[in-house]
């Protein structure tokens, strides 16, 4: 009994073959190697997953701000005095919108400030206004409340991407202004303000004078329905502090503000290192607190063409261009690819020539895509004289690139159809062509479709071959046909990534997300086709 237990382990494995210590050590070593391998494999998968997660989360967090756009509602005067209904195209709509905005800030008088203020709204305002009036002439003849998109910097500021702004804090002492506008003196009831300025990068001068340069944080004091920007501070009599400041928004009186009535706002990012000035920030905050600014779904981004202004740039032109290009690619690559595969697999004699062709098709699948672009330039543009930047040429180049992929995938799925199907068909008297088209091809179709869709997805993400044929270009108009100039999604991403304006960073990520969505949909269709229709033998 004891013998039996000792020769068979608890799991019923014969232990007797691992009798000596060396064999036992070897066994242990083999188990250890297996465990190691499993763990390494799992770690590799986990690491890859982690990178993917990191990449996706970076793109998604960057893209989210681009999905919304801030609009400013302004009372636009479209009375007959401003807009002549007979000459709608000759009207300067931008000027009308800018007038409505400057009317909100009657205090802004200097030319430079007016220019800053006008810059708050997008330069595309006039275009939107003209389009909307053409669509709805009922707007004419009265003053309408109309929402105009804000300029990219104003928009980024409101999204919190341009400057670090502290919240408003009540000042726990009295504040007395000397005047209501211009450069004024402010007297604070205690000296707490001095310490605060020191903490925010003020430069210390003689007699305890503190200067807030453009390299220091901005300190804004809001009271008496106005705002003052502090420029310098010094200790005053009886423990008070005297500040010099510039009025950004006029005060309504010189009455002292009691403790808790004035508010301090600190903008940590110094004015010199941001693209938005203190004035613009104060104006935007005023408009926002008046409830005139509204964040909406960014329909401009989804339904317009490209633009040099971040707030006006959209992906629709690129999406349409991609669609047109893919149609051409599919129309050329699918029939030719499948026909070639059928001939090579079912009809062609197996000789040296077909072997050479086969090897070359496999090689073509590995040729760098830029080579196809060069071919397109030399053959389609220079020899055939087809138009530059046109989806028809792009589609033809990409079709050349996807052809080998489709042929290889189609041949593989034709080969997977068992010979018994062919023999049965031929056995009951079907011709070779009938056998192939009535029996083999329908069974191979799901595999062919899957291969085609994967090839198309590959083509959808390609930019290099299009560089040569002029599809990497700035094209505003949305293409209406196969010969109109067009660009495609990956090219749009590439170009936005290269623009200097900060607003394009979010647009780039959002466009990447859209491209990813298309690719995921195409791959999902491929998976569904395979699951649903593929027969296994």
């Amino acid at each position, binding site marked *: 009994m004891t013998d039996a237990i000792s020769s068979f382990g608890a799991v019923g494995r014969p232990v007797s073959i691992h009798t000596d210590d060396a064999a036992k050590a070897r066994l242990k070593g083999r188990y250890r190697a297996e465990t190691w391998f499993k763990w390494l494999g799992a770690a590799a998968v986990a690491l890859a997953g982690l990178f993917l997660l990191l990449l996706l989360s970076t793109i998604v967090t960057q893209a989210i701000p681009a999905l919304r756009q801030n609009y400013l509602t302004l009372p636009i005067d479209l009375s007959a005095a401003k807009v002549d209904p007979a000459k709608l195209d000759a009207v300067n709509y931008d000027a009308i919108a800018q007038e409505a905005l400057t009317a909100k800030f009657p205090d802004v008088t200097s030319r430079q400030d007016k220019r800053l203020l006008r810059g708050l709204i997008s330069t595309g305002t006039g*275009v939107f206004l003209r389009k909307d009036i053409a669509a709805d002439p009922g707007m004419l003849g009265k003053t309408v409340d109309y929402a105009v998109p804000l300029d990219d910097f104003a928009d980024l500021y409101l999204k919190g991407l341009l400057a670090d702004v502290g919240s408003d804090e009540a000042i726990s002492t009295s504040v007395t202004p000397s005047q209501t506008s211009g450069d004024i003196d402010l007297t604070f009831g205690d000296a707490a303000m001095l310490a605060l300025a020191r903490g925010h990068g003020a430069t210390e001068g003689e007699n305890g004078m503190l200067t807030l340069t453009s390299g220091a944080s901005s300190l804004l004091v809001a009271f008496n329905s106005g705002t003052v920007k502090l420029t310098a501070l010094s200790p005053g009599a009886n423990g008070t502090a005297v500040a010099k400041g510039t009025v950004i928004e006029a005060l309504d009186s010189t009455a002292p503000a009691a403790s808790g009535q004035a508010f301090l706002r600190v903008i940590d990012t110094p004015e010199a290192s941001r693209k938005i000035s203190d004035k613009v920030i104060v104006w935007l905050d005023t408009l926002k607190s008046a409830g005139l600014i509204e964040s909406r779904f960014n329909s401009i981004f989804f339904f317009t063409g490209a633009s040099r202004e971040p707030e006006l740039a959209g992906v629709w032109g690129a999406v349409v261009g991609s669609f047109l290009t893919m149609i051409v690619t599919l129309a*050329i690559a699918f029939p030719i690819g499948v026909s070639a595969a059928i001939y090579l697999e079912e009809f062609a004699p197996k000789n040296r020539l077909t072997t050479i062709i086969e090897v070359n098709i496999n090689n073509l699948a590995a040729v760098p895509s830029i080579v196809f672009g060069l071919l397109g330039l030399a053959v389609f543009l220079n020899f055939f004289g*087809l138009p530059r930047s046109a989806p028809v040429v792009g589609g033809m180049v990409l079709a050349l690139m996807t052809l080998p992929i489709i042929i290889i995938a189609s041949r593989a799925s034709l080969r997977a159809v068992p010979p018994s199907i062919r023999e049965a068909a031929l056995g009951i008297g079907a011709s070779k062509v009938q056998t192939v088209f009535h029996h083999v091809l329908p069974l191979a179709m799901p595999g062919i479709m899957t291969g085609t869709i994967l090839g198309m997805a590959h083509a959808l993400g390609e930019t290099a071959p299009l560089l040569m044929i002029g599809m990497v270009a700035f094209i505003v108009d949305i293409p209406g046909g196969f010969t109109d100039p067009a660009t495609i999604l990956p090219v749009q991403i590439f170009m936005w990534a290269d623009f200097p304006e900060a607003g394009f960073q979010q647009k780039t990520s959002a466009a990447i997300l859209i491209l990813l969505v298309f690719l995921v949909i195409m791959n999902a269709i491929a998976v569904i086709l395979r699951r649903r229709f593929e027969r296994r033998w």
Partner: protein
Amino acid sequence: MKKFLLTASAAALALAASAGYAAARDQIQIVGSSTVFPFTTAVAEKLGQSGQIKTPVVESTGTGGGMKLFCQGVGENTPDFTNASRAIKDSELETCKANGVTPVEIKIGFDGIVLANSKAGTVVDLTKEQIFKALAKNVAVDGKVVANPYKNWSDVDASLPATKIEVLGPPPTSGTRDAFVELVMDKACQEEVKTANEKGCGETREDGAFVEAGENDNLIVQKLEANVNAFGIFGFSFLDQNADKLQGHKVDGVEPTFEDIASGKYGVSRSLYIYAKKEHVGVIPGMQEFIAEYTSDAAWGPEGYLADKGLIPLPDAERATWAENAKALKGMGS
């Protein structure tokens, strides 16, 4: 199935063939420099918005590539304008003429090339000689030409910080690089290096101190943010747009500011051009409108929208002359 395949391929072939007989082009095509690209696209969009003509198509091919396409000949398949971040070369002008192309030169403004680093980094004040010493492949030490021995900025000049020399710059294919070599490296070139090798002045070191960062200037900006000790070389418009992250440095004592580049005080600046094809005026619709829009004060003036995009405008008198020439379509060499 067979029928389907046959019709589909027939349709595809017909489609491919018919494209060759497209209607005459009614849209301006522009190629050329990536530096001028942001400005030309802005003008193109403005013109398209106004509804006068179809929005021109603008490609960024680089100055040299643009010239090649532009000078290829006259006809619908060749571009109507090319952007250039330098003046046309004599050899290019000859090719143009040989192919029957008369270019109309329009100088549109200036661009400064800046040396910048992250705001968190140190501020330096460099001379062109110091930049040459830090970046040239071969330098003269005690009268002998040797491979660049300097590791730290302080090795170049004792007044500079003791940090490693690490500069990201554009590759040789870039117009920015051409201009940088011409304006800094050639100017500050040491006599010994020049005599030793005619082209030696423009060669940058390959030991890791100078990194070619690719044509994408945004990439350089991102790398500078991540690496406090590194410096970058790129166009002023990128410094202007990223003023919250980067600081520009003085070269020969002059800070790269809008005003100092415009006045010519800042030494590392170049002129930007567009070239129009005279033969296409009146054939391709919108050529004159495009020239008029580009040379209007609302576009290239000191307060125009191109200045907002980072173009540094020409002085008033010069602007007026160029606008006049452009309007009269004064061709080169004719």
